[in-house]
């Protein structure tokens, strides 16, 4: 090789050695600097304050919107009823069971159909168009049919809840199975992997984040389905209690029951989030804000 002919500079440039630093701070607006708990509490206080103002000044009739105080009293009453094993607890248990059964059925059917659609050409070509057609229908319209088929008992509500929650799981499972890259598929093919091995060892694990996204949407849908079923089909669930309270113009009760229901929905959602963090430990990218 020819000898190198470049010059190495050994002295540091001396300009500005005696002059002050030019350090500056990046400006973060005040609204982004508020700690999370302060922001959440502040927003809560503001909304309740507005609510109180609207009711105290009689801008809205108390039959339409109860005061925060009335709602709080009713929350305490309903809470006490549940703790002492009263009728609201029975309703809550009924609704919880409806939701859990519906969710389990939706996961079972949704996952199976999702694998059929995502893994086989038959599923993609023949089954998927029908699923899309059914999915575009207003699913609540099927409620009278479910009641006619399964009666006024829990069965018809479970059916509606599962019916609504199945589709997001089908779509997300199928999308997850498509998620493995071409290189990954070639890798498995070149290793002589069977179709089942490729499905279990590559496509299903790769698709897990998608599957859980579908589960989160389904967790919301299954709640809506169960409550709608109870509205329309009566029975012993919380939905029926809400309808009765509303017909008696007992709006504080409606409010407190909705709040307790939201705890049920939130719990279900958080369980799914926890499962996702446990099973998809390698994919930590999807948690903006830390609640999903």
């Amino acid at each position, binding site marked *: *090789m*020819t000898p190198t002919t470049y010059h190495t500079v050994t002295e540091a440039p001396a300009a500005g050695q005696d002059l002050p630093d030019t350090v500056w701070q990046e400006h973060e607006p005040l609204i982004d600097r508020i700690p999370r708990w302060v922001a959440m509490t502040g927003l809560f206080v503001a909304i309740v304050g507005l609510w109180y103002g609207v009711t105290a000044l009689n801008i809205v009739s108390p039959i339409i919107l109860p005061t925060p105080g009335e709602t709080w009293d009713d929350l305490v009453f309903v809470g006490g009823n549940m703790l002492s094993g009263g009728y609201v607890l029975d309703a809550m248990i009924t609704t919880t069971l409806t939701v859990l059964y519906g969710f389990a059925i939706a996961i079972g059917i949704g996952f199976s159909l999702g694998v059929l659609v995502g893994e086989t050409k038959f599923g993609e070509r023949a089954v998927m168009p029908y699923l899309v057609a059914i999915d575009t229908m207003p699913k609540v319209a099927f409620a009278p049919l479910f009641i006619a088929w399964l009666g006024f008992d829990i069965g018809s509500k479970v059916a509606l809840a599962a019916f609504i929650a199945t589709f997001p799981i089908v779509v997300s499972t199928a999308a997850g199975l498509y998620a493995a*890259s071409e*290189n*990954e598929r*070639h*890798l*498995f*093919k*070149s*290793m*002589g*992997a069977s179709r089942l*091995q490729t499905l279990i*060892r*590559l496509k299903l*694990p790769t698709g897990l984040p998608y599957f859980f996204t579908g589960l989160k949407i389904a967790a919301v849908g299954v709640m809506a389905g169960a409550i709608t079923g109870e509205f329309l089909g009566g029975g012993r669930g919380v939905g029926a209690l809400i309808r009765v309270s509303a017909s008696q113009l007992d709006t504080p009760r409606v409010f407190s029951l909705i709040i307790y229901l939201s705890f049920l929905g939130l719990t279900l959602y958080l369980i799914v989030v926890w499962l996702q963090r446990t099973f998809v*430990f*390698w*994919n930590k990218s999807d948690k903006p804000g830390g609640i999903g």
Partner: protein
Amino acid sequence: MTVAPAMVAESGPAGHRPVYEVARLSKVYPRNAFTALDNVNLVLREGEFASVIGASGCGKSTLLKIMAGLLPPTRGRVVLNETPVMGPRPDIGMMFQQATLLPWKTTLENIVLPIEIREGRAAAKRARGRARQILELVGLGKAVDTYPSELSGGMAQRAAICRMLITDPAVLLLDEPFSALDELTRDFMNMELQRICMERRATAFLVTHSIPEAVILSDKIYIMQANPGHIAEIIEIDLPRPRTLDLINTKRFGEIVSHIREKLDRERFI
């Protein structure tokens, strides 16, 4: 053995037996009647490092897929160690542009994946000791139990090399393995690849679109041209081994590079 064209049969280090033979290979995609490859002939001899270079769409990836048994040929013979290649085989090692490590498996578990797929979990467990040795060889001894998300691009590709080597394949097929890496890492990885291939006396076939990479690694370069994909020229690289990166600055290296570039450029303007 099929009679290969004279141009190929005469070349290669004397006495080295042919490992991989491709003769009269053509590939026509029936969907649009597109001829991706037309009458491709090549022979890989034991311990030889060959490259195929060409612009995108010249059929070099198709060629590699057929050689890997991932794609059936339309016409021609594809034979590895005197057995026709009629599908994926354990004696073919492959590497891709991306490391394609499974993110839910540790580095070690990723390395023994080919064994897990072919022979089951028990065999994969038994291969762990060997996997550790190979990882040690490429300087990944400390990354055995980490997950791929914690590896840099170069480390991940080194792990992919280990995964390819664990089954001790007769031929290595490399599909632009380092083209997603930054240039500094890429140079380093090419030297690593040369070292590993020399140590194991590996027979390797590299698909690339980097001329310097092809020249510094190869004993023989196949220049491919498109429409339809065919081998336009075969160049022997007689630079001594082991080659170092300093070689890039020599006159001989520059001549070879500009010759190949001219050949590839000319096609582009026709």
